[in-house]
């Protein structure tokens, strides 16, 4: 009998402990977090957990508009909000363009600009003239290779970004631009008046690297005349008996898919160039033509860098995936998508990625960025990594002043027989 009582009492006390433990945990749970969260969230305005995206946006928009230290413009804040919303996707090409930016973008892409017929490079005093097209207006006005442009329309451009200088020089056909120009080493400057005209930019240049008997072919971009220019350059190099070929796509921002496809048709027949994945509908494929194939009897290296993008990446990527060339350089930009611009009633625009490209064998190379715009992933990985050494003066296309080209030459030499 005693034992029975004992077991019952043990059972009861166990049950009591259990119940007590259960309640104690509850009691503690109520007490401790409560004072913790009161302190933690002291003065913190918490948006309701069930708020919709729109409500979250609106309530914070109103809060900032009403309470910020600064005087906030209604539209600016709205555009900043919508811009931030689109930026949260991490896709650097999907952006909101407020009215002024939308206009600038539109001008740029419609290519309503005309140039002066010169290629410029950076210089601390402004811009250095690298090439002058002989049948262009700049040449006619007296601009020569080696000149330094220190002013555009009377305004000094020393210290200005090259891209901005170029933007200032470009303009509508028939309009004039005033360039302040000096010969390096002198102090005197001259003013040249140049009339802007439509320029057919040569996009392909070539030369033979005499020491190694290799061909060097540079493609600046993939425009309409590029295929013809490419064929011509190739023929000339082969006529000189090259033993290998370097195709330089560094800083090539891309261009027309059609052109890339045409050029690839010289290398492979009836093969997939890209697969395009749209939001709705079936995937679309772009393939190379048949009957355009060229016989390449020597090894090929393609040079890429962080500014090689879009059609350049497609071209390089396909040559790589079909085993037609070795990629040398650094990881490319990572543009593997098509955007569409949606103009809005208030003159702003939304530029949205509507399709992605996939290369034949590579994983998707589209670039992802973090909030600061720094690249996290994407781009084409070269077969052989080669950085551009900038400790000494760099001259692209000259082996002794171009470390990436030197690497390419090394690769080709190891592939050629002797």
């Amino acid at each position, binding site marked *: 009998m005693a034992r029975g009582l004992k077991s019952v009492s043990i059972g009861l006390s166990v049950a009591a402990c259990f119940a007590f433990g259960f309640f104690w945990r509850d009691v503690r749970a109520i007490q401790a977090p409560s004072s913790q969260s009161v302190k933690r969230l002291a003065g913190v305005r918490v948006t309701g957990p069930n708020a919709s*995206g729109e409500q979250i946006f609106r309530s914070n928009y109103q809060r900032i508009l009403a309470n910020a230290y600064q005087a906030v413009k209604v539209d600016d804040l709205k555009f900043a*909000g*919508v811009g931030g*919303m689109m930026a949260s*996707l991490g896709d650097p090409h999907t952006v909101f363009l407020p009215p002024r930016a939308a206009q600038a973008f539109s001008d740029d892409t419609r290519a309503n600009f005309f140039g002066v017929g010169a290629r410029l490079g950076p210089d601390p005093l402004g811009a250095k003239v690298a090439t002058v097209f002989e049948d262009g207006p700049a040449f006619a006005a007296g601009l020569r290779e080696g000149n330094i442009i220190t002013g555009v329309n009377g305004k000094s451009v020393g210290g200005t970004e090259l891209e901005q200088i170029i933007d200032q020089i470009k303009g509508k056909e028939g309009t004039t631009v005033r360039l302040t120009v000096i010969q390096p080493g002198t102090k005197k*400057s001259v003013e040249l008046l140049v009339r802007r005209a439509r320029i057919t930019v040569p996009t392909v240049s070539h030369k033979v690297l005499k020491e190694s008997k290799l061909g060097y072919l540079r493609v600046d971009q993939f425009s309409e005349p590029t295929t013809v220019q490419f064929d011509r350059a190739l023929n000339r190099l082969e006529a000189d008996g090259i033993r290998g070929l370097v195709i330089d796509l560094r800083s090539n*921002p891309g261009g027309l898919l059609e052109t890339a496809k045409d050029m690839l048709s010289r290398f492979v027949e009836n093969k997939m160039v890209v697969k395009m994945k*749209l939001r709705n509908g079936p995937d679309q494929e772009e393939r190379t033509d048949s009957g355009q194939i060229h016989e390449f009897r020597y090894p090929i290296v393609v040079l890429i860098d962080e500014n090689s993008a879009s059609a350049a990446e497609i071209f390089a990527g396909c040559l790589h995936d079909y085993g037609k060339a070795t990629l040398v350089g650094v990881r490319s930009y990572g543009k593997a998508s098509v955007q569409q611009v949606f103009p809005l009633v208030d003159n702003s625009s939304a530029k949205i990625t509507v*399709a992605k490209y996939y290369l034949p064998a590579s994983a998707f190379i589209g670039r992802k960025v973090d909030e600061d715009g720094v690249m996290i992933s994407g781009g084409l990985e070269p077969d052989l990594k080669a950085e551009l050494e900038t400790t000494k003066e760099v001259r692209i296309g000259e082996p002794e002043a171009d470390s990436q080209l030197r690497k390419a030459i090394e690769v080709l030499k190891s592939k050629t027989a002797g």
Partner: protein
Amino acid sequence: MNDVKKSWRTALAIGAGGIAIIGGSWIRDYSEVGQVPSLSQRVLPLDGLLASRKSDVSIPVGDYYAEMVRLLKSEYVDNISDDRKLAAGAVKGMVGSLGDIRSLSMDPSEFRAFLNTRQGEFEGVGVDLTYELLPKVAPRKTDPGAIEGPPEDATEAAARAPSVPRLVVSALVPGSAAAKAGVQPGDWIEQIDSHWVVEEGIVRKMLQAQRDFTNRKINYEQYAKVQGEFRTRMVRALMPARARDRVVLGKTGTLKVIWRRGKDRRETTLQKGTWKLPSESPTPGATRLTFLPGDEDKVLNAVKSGKPIVLDLRNSMFGDESVMRSCLALIAPAGIYGQISTDRKEAAVAFKLAKGNANPPKSVKLLVDRTTGGVAEIFALALNSRGIAKLVGGQTSGDRAFREIVQLPDGSGYTLHTGTFKVGSGGPTKVAVSSPLPEVN
């Protein structure tokens, strides 16, 4: 260099703030427009709102936002389902557009750490970091020997442009990895691991070199050297917000940090962990205040005790305004202690105590230093300006901002600078601080 150019451009949101950039640069935009045959361009009338008419009636902002979300969801190549992430992005964009180092947006992990820091719970290396701007440079005239032309040069333009701030130690947990390595409040960060932290100093040096070269004060080699140094650093640079995350977030791992104090550089290797500020003041007899709930009782007890009051306001930056006012009212009489000013057109509002202590305690000492800021600094200034309290220790941080703190459903949040405290007229403009009291460690 493109990525870093982008970083400069998009530094409008330094993750947690909005500071625009020097020198500007344009994002090279490589785009093919309209190449997809099945799509065609069309103007969107923001369906259902304006129908087919153009009018001056502006679209309610919520509807505008909702339409943009709808457009994005229907057209974007990938599926978008996280509405909260979009909204958090929108808020981040808006906060960033203010360009105010005192209005900072934070992602969920940053915001969580921020709230913990308020309560004295730190992770990382045991510091809190705030952003500080360099003082502006006054534009100078062009030298007569210069190559002719520049009515305005890059240095002058940069001097007027908003700046990239420095990351400065604003709180330090005694005994933490950073403290043990000799880091002090006020130190700023130059490098983390092998990454240089972007800040304005080196940019100014670069622009000055450009200027000197244009003015023939240095030759090309000297200029190229500075340019090379700048380029090397920029290639692997960290924006301040990313740098900050590396130092204040995370409980494990080791970090190499190079700190600066004036011209001195200090290299440290620090082990991350969790660190807690003791709730008691290290100074015997002092009461630590962070202006979180519960501090009113502490002040009340101190006042009631009749003994000389010593309040420790160090390591306190983000207290709550209403708690601060309650504490103030327990010590100081009702009245106007200063103004809350803004950058808006409206006149400043008085910082007023409606009710107070008609018999303020005779002896009040406030321990302050560089880690005192926000409502804590306002408290100190208010009492000091009326002669009610003496300030002991070191110069305060200079952060006299009133802030709102907002949390979003996804855990992200932001601080919103709503006004700045200005001491009432008749009060001292400079904070007079006497030497520190002895401390126990």
